[in-house]
Every structure is written in C-alpha cells, then in structure tokens.
C-alpha cells in the first residue's frame, strides 16, 4: 500500500469532481485488499460513506431502488428484497461470508475487480492491471478463469454473485457524474475485455453508482441461484446460474437467465431466454438452452471442467426454477 490522500465529501457534487488516480471507497473489502497487494495504487481516496446512498425504497412503478451504499447484508435481509426478489437475496447470500457481506456495499459489489491470481500479483504480467504487459493467465493456472467473452488480452471472470442475479432480474444502474446523471441496464454495465481489459465497466472518471433499480417482476418461487464452487461456502463460483421464470399452465411465459463464474461479465444470452419462452419445461428444452448459453465457449489449460459442469448446472437450475423449488443457500443439498 502506498501513501494516498483522503477525503470524505458529503455531497455528490463534490464527490464527482476528482483528480486523476482517484478511487472511491465504499466498504473497502476489495479496494483495501488490492491496495495492500500493490495492485491498486490510488493517490487519492474519496470515501463515499458520508453520502446518503444507503436507502432501500419502493419505486412508483412497483419496482425497488437499492442504494449504492446499502450493505450486501442489509440488502439481502430487507423484507422488500427477501419477499419480492428472493433471487437477489439468494445470490447475495451465496457470496462471500457474513462478515464480508456486513461491510460490502451494493455499489462496491458492482465494481469489484476480478480474482484472477495473476491480476492479484504485481510480479506477474497482466493486461488488466498493467495495460500492454500481456496476460499471464493464458497458458497458466487458469482453472478459475472464464470460458465465455474472453479475448486474447484477458480471460478473467467478473466474480460477483449479486450481479448475476441483477442481470437475470434486468436491473438498471443509476450513475451520477461530472456530466450529470444517466441510467444503464446492468447487462450493459460490465464490459467484455476485448483489447482494453483494464476497463471493467462503462463507468467514467468521476462517475458514481448511486443506486440500482429493480423492475417490478421478481419471479416469486420460480427462481433459483445455483452456485458451484470449490468448497461448500465462502468461495467464488466455478459456475453459477441465476434463473427467473414466469410460469403459467406449466408453460414458461418468460425466462431470464444469467451465469456467473464462466464469463468475463455476468453472462446473458437473449436467444437462450427466447428459446425457453412459451415452452413446456423438459430436460431436452433445458439442454437446448444450455447449448445456446454456452455457444462460443473457449477453454484454456486448466478450466475445461467449467465447460463440463456448466450445462449440468444450467439444466439443474432451470429444473429448480420451473419446479418452484429454489436452491437453499444454507442447506447444501442440491435438489
């Protein structure tokens, strides 16, 4: 960690006007870690915690607004979330540990950085950390790296669980920056690495995530967040699937799916969702959806297991959601 200056503004306006080499601090569970490892080297820290951004409130359209500074723990436990958006609550609870969720904020979760081993180790070449140095993960120990959305420059996953559910729920992200406010669909918030992997998302300098909006549709019991990881708790996803289905007469009216652990961003394939709509749930239908979701997957040295597991996890998650028996995050049996 290197010397930095620190400020704690109490208005958004001040917080948006920042010098170069600034990082925003929310819960600090990711940023401080990365600073200790000399991965992030900000010269200025702007602490967002004096801003009033921790509300969780209903929207006129029947949706819900989640403040950027509400903690992951408070968000998952909020009755409006756990009752109306159980998919989101479930995904949050599938992530990290209670201690971390108590600190981690919604805005920080959206902006957390990859867990790629090489990104985390300043002695190693990494295009995301040090543009142009190369990608050590390629041909290296890349069991945890992505198989979808990768590029020659970077194959790192975006590690969040929460954002996978937000993608499935078609959430939108509200931003305020020096140029004013804008709203971006969560599905477009994170970027593919292409040849600029250091840009994780579309956030511009001085822009702050103020809140996340959930549309009214929460899916009730026909949802699931199924996360496969290297131990039964407190590990990032190898493969995770968030599903929300609108069911009627044993027919899927609308399907929303997103995947985590496999993509360089929360992975959504609208064609796969379209393929399910209007159909009766069946194993073969789910297999088709899995094929569609995984189209274009590319594996590297160590991560072929993801491709082997992913279709099975997708099929199981779709079955759970169709049956209205979502995955429990405390009972570890996968039904």
């Amino acid at each position, binding site marked *: *960690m*290197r*010397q930095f200056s620190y400020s704690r503004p109490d208005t958004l306006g001040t917080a948006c006007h920042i010098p170069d080499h600034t990082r925003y601090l929310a819960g600090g569970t990711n940023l401080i870690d990365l600073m*200790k*490892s*000399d991965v992030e080297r900000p010269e200025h820290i702007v602490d967002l915690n004096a801003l009033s951004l921790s509300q969780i409130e209903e929207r006129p359209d029947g949706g819900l607004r989640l403040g950027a500074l509400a903690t992951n723990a408070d968000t998952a436990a909020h009755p409006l979330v756990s009752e109306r958006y159980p998919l989101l609550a479930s995904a949050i609870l599938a992530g990290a540990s209670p201690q971390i969720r108590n600190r981690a904020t919604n805005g920080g979760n959206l902006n957390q950085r990859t*867990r790629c*081993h*090489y990104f*985390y*180790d*300043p*002695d*190693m070449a990494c295009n995301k950390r040090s543009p142009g140095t190369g990608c*050590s993960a390629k*041909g*290296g*120990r890349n*069991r*945890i790296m992505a198989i979808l959305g990768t590029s020659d420059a970077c194959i790192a996953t975006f590690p969040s669980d929460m954002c996978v559910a937000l993608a499935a729920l078609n959430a939108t992200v509200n931003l305020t920056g020096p140029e004013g406010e804008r709203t971006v669909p969560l599905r477009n918030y994170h970027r593919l690495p292409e040849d600029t992997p250091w840009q994780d998302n579309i956030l511009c300098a001085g822009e702050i995530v103020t809140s996340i909006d959930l549309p009214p549709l929460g899916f009730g019991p026909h949802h699931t967040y199924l996360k*496969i*990881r*290297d*131990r*039964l*708790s*407190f*590990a*990032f996803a*190898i493969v995770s699937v968030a599903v929300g289905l609108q069911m009627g007469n044993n027919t899927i009216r609308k399907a929303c799916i997103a995947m985590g652990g496999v993509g360089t961003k929360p992975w959504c394939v609208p064609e796969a969702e379209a393929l399910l709509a209007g159909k009766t749930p069946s194993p073969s239908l789910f297999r088709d959806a899995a094929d569609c979701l995984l189209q274009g997957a590319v594996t590297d040295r160590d991560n*072929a*297991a*993801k491709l*082997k*597991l992913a279709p*099975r*996890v997708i*099929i*199981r998650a779709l079955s759970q959601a169709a049956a209205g028996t979502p995955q429990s995050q405390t009972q*570890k*049996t*996968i*039904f």
Partner: protein
Amino acid sequence: MTLHSAKIGQPVSRIDGLAKVTGQARYAAEPHPAGMLYGFIVNSPIARGRIEAIRDEAARAVPGVVEIMTHLNRPHSALSEKSYVDGLGVPGSPYRPLHDAEISFNGQPVAVVLAETFEAAREAAMRLEVDYERWPHNADFEASLHQKYMPGKTRSNYVPPKSRGNAAEAYALSPIKIEGRYHLAPEHHNPMEMHATTVIAEDDGTFTVWDKTQGPQAVQAYLTSALSLSKDQVRVRNPYVGGAFGSGLRAQHNVFLAALGAKMLKHSVRITLTRQQMFTHVFRPEAVMDIALGAQPDGTLQSMIVDGVTDTSRFEHNMENLVIWGLINYKCPNATADYKVAPRDTYTSSDMRAPGAATGVNLFEMAVDEMAYACNMDPLAFRLHNYSDIDAMHDMPLTSKALKEAMQEGAERFGWYNRPMAPKSMRDGKELIGWGMATGIWDAMFSPTSARATLTADGRLHIATAASDIGTGTYTILAQTASEAFGIPIEMIDIELGDSTLPECPTEGGSWTAASAGAAVWLACQSLREKLFRTLGKSGNISAWLTEGLSNKTTVLQDGFLQDKGADENLRLSLSEALSLTGQDRLEVEETAKPGLRGTISQMRKARFTHSAVFCEVRVDEELGIVRVTRLVNAVAAGRIMNPKTAASQVRGAMVMATGMALHEESLMDERVGRFMNHNFSEYHIPAHADIPDMDVLFVTEKDKEVSPLGVKGVGEIGMCGTAAAIANAIFHATGQRHRSLPITPGD
C-alpha cells in the same frame, strides 16, 4: 473452596484459554520494544538467476525508511554453509538469506526494508526496483521426475524401506492385481498466525528473539551459528504459537533476517510475513506413488510394490517416509518399496503435519480399497484378513497395536456392518451416498526431555521446560501431569514453556511432546516431592504427626497439603507452611526423562506406532459431482490419553485438514515462473464450516507400558492419516468412480 488435584486422563479445559481469548497471550509479533523498526521483505519474482542491479532511490525516498538491507550491504554472517544447518538437518546446502546475488527460488528474499513504521517499510518494498538476469529453471514436478534420485546422505529420521520375499515375481503370479499412479498436490501449512519475529536489542548487547517457531532452542542454535554470535547473546522465546503444523520446525528466513537487521542497525526489529509471503517458504511436497498390489482370490495379499517420489529443491534433499507404511502395517509375504526425491527450482519442501504418512498412508489406503474391491471383499474385512500384529517390514514386535479394536469400535459406532458392498447402491434423491473407510498409522515417538520443578514460598509449583505449545494443549496436559505427580491443584501450578533458557526440550513435532515433556514433568514432580519430604524429615522443627508420618512413609501430598493417610484431617500442612519449615525459600529439581526410564527400554527392540480406523459417509450429487462429507468417525489407538478433550480436538483438527487434503487444498504452481499462484486464503481453499460434518472421535483402550514412560503415544498427527483416503474411498462407493489424485475437486 477446596481445590483438587487434576489427574492425567481428565478432560481439563485449556488453562491458557482465557489468556488467549482475552489477548493476554503474547505471540511473536506482539512485543513492542521502544524504537523498534519494522522490516518488510522483498521477494524474488524469478525462480533462477542473479540480481543484476538494485535501484533503491525511490524506496529510500519514502519517509521513515531507515535502511534497505541486501546482499551488498548486510552485516557479516557465517560463511560456511554448515553454519546454516538447522535442527531438522535436511541434507544439502541450506539456503542462506541475502548471502549473494544468486536466486534459486521464486519468492527468495532479495532485500529487507527497515523503517520506522510498517506502512513505510511496505511501501518502500513496493518501490524497490531490482533487475535480474534470468536463468532457465524447472519448477514442473512432472518434468522433474526423470531427474529423481536418492540423496547420498539421508535425513536422520529417514526409515529406508526394507524388501521381503520376491515382490515382482509374486505380483506376476498373483491372480488378482491392481496397479496405478496416485498423486497428491502440494499443500501449504497456513497456520492462523503468520511467521513473525521480533528481535529485541537489549541494552547489554544481547538479543531477545520472539519467534514463531516450534523449537526455541533450535532457533537459538541456528542464530548463534549463522550469525556467529555466542550462545549467551541470544535468547529465543515462543510462549504462544498460533498453530504451525510443521512450518515452524525449521528456522524460517524471517528470524534470520530480523536478527541480521538488528545486528546491522543495533536496533530492535520486527518482521512479519504477509499471508502471501507464507507461500514463499515451506510446503508439503507434491508426491506420486506407483502402487501395485497382488492378491489371492480369497483376499490374501501376495505382493506389494510401492514406488514413491516427492519433490525437493535444487539445493537441499528433503525426504519423507512416504513408501513404508503399507509394508509395516500389512501382512504380506512379498513386498518392496523404493523412494526418491525429484529436484525442482523452488524452495525446499518440508514437513507438514504427519509428513510422509499423511501422503503415503492416504494414497496407499486408496489402493488397498481398490484391491479389496478387486477381491470382491468388504474393505474392513480385507484389512482384517491381512492384519499384521507386528511391524511387518522390520519383522519386529510392537509395543502395542489396538488397531483391530479401533476398527471394530469405529465400525460399530459408524454402523459399517449394514453397508452394501456394491458401489452406487445407496441414494437419496439426486445424491449418491457412499461409505468408505481406511486405517491410519503414525510413529509414536519419544525424545529425551528435561524439566524443572520448583516449589516457592507462596506454595506454588513452577514447571519449566523449553517445550512449545503450538496450540495443541501442552500447557494443560503438563499442568495435569504435574498436578497428579506432585499432588497439587492445577490452580497452584505455573507452567513456563517456550524459552530457550529453560531446561532442554526437543523441537515440538512428530507428536512426541506429550509423551516426552509429560514424562520429564512427571519425573521432576516426583523427585521434587521426594526432596521436600527428605528435607522436611531432616529439619528438626516439625510436629510429631509429620515426623512419624515421614518416617513411616504414611505422609502424602494431596491437593496441595501434606497429610497423613488415615489420620485426622485437621492435621495438615500447606505447601508454603511446609516449605518455611525446611528453612528454605525454594526447593528445586531438574530431571531428564530418557527412554530407558523405569525399565521401558523397548525403543530398539520394539516398534512403536499410533493407529486409527476412519469411517466416512459422503453424499455426491450424481450429475454435478459435488461432494459433501456428512459423517466422519475416527477410532484412535494412541496409548494413554492424557486429556480426552484436547486430544479429541487434535484429532478433529487433523481430520479437518485431511478433508482439505481430500477435497480442497492445492497450491497451484505456475511452473513457468516457479511460483504458487493461489497465494491467499481466498483462493487457497481450506475447508469452511459448511464442509465439515459432526465428527466423532473415539479413543480405544490401549495399555502400553513400553512405548513411553507414561504410556502416552501422542495424537497430533494421527488424524491426518487415513481420513483423506476414507473420503476418497467413500466417493468411490457412492459413485463407482475411482480418483487417484488428491484433491478431488468439482468437475474432476
């Protein structure tokens, strides 16, 4: 309130528990001498080569930086490699930190920044620029296998495998055979407390070194030798150790570098490794074992052929007792084993909890399970059928082996006898259920140890020995031992450990401390009581009842009072009163327990082992392959159990670690650079609570008067041996799929 003496065998809670949970217990990184400097180590990013240049302007410009110590400016340290040999005695050329420009492993310290604050030291370390000339290296275990060799000089504890019969021929003739290559990934110890050293530069020019170590006297010897200091210039303390698992057996580079910095600047210095840096030194070696077993159709083993290799560095020959365990534990007329080490350009692998056996027993027991199935025999019945009552490799009797009892009691507790033989025959919904078992074996060692017992004017008993309590409960069992041996309540005992100035005790490891230090304390307490009685008897001014009792030998010391057996209870004397009657302000004895004590000289004539039988239930999601361990029963035969509470904790802890070995733990080597890449707790997975079921640990009765003076065998490591195999075997029973490489992870 009357306080009573505790006995060996009672489930006494940790006497140091309160100090630990209230932060009173001081660990190596906690003393804070005035003016102390913080050291931060800079590690090499390359595996082999040499330092070409060090550019330190930016680093020195960080406010608070006092010095940057490198091979170029370090103070004098011993020249000869021999001076750096530590207590573990790994043959080869020990690594000499900051010795010269040469790099022989990734992570090797190349500089230490010394600064007024930790933050300044760390920042300067990040700003230090070092140029390297890179030389070719090999850090790939597979690729190193063709260079495997047997070191000319072996480690002192190395047990060479001994062949019997003609294994190759018997194998060829066996009607039933199995053969395979078994593999274990490298693992790191990852104790909760990181390695750290605080060197206090005392006013008189001596150094008090607080180090995270398992052997304060070994570190003292190492430092005096490597830094050319005299013995009275260095005192090493480690009263509390936050786990070690073998990582503290060797003097790690942090202690050398902190002392070197203190010597250079004549200042107190502290170095604490980061969690990431904990992956730059010792680890459990990667291993392969080629195992071939032959048997008769009735399940009688005919031949065992074991060929094993573990990795070592290019400069030292770390060796493990990897291949011998099956040959010792099973009756089989023909057996042979071979062991070699394979060099790679990394730091030297080292002992980690049950070194050799954790790997060798588990992998062998996975093969035994395969053989039982090849013979269509229940795995427990197969093991009983080939049971050996002796050390079959050395053809030597054993001091005891209650493994059969452990197998039976464990099986009953688990409910093994209802087990359907066929794999994939139990299911519950989408989960397949499997039951597996394995046996464990580990050395029951004893090392000569000294202890001092002192009775002071306040009537308290002080016990001192240079043993280390690495979190195992040594303070507690020694207090129990002293309480029973002397006849004094635990509350009136002070135990002093972890100081190189105390009576000699070998480095804690190999599960020998309970047996060895326990015996020394027992002896010292008995001897102190005799001395008290003798001295009292000689002093003229004691009451009639005591004079009579002492001469009739009816005086007893019980619960802290001298009294007469059967006599009036009011006629008693407290220890402080007794001591004042002797006219002395303290009575002290020092004793050394040796294996020969009280006619137990069986060390040479009999072999000594701890045994266990482990039973496991797993549930495996059939499609997703997700494994959940749902039940674990471990029946342990470890002689006399000094404290069932701390002993069961030791076994349970090892079972957790072995669950990690079976399912989670793996240090991922990127052989292109020679670095373990998942060097943090987020990506190096140890089991979480959710991965661990209720564990049942039972100790079977095993009376063994010969193994050690107190009949104790030690329990720190046995829980590692067999547990991982039981899990792997249960996975086979659940799924019908064999895995020969650990850990078994999702997608395998």
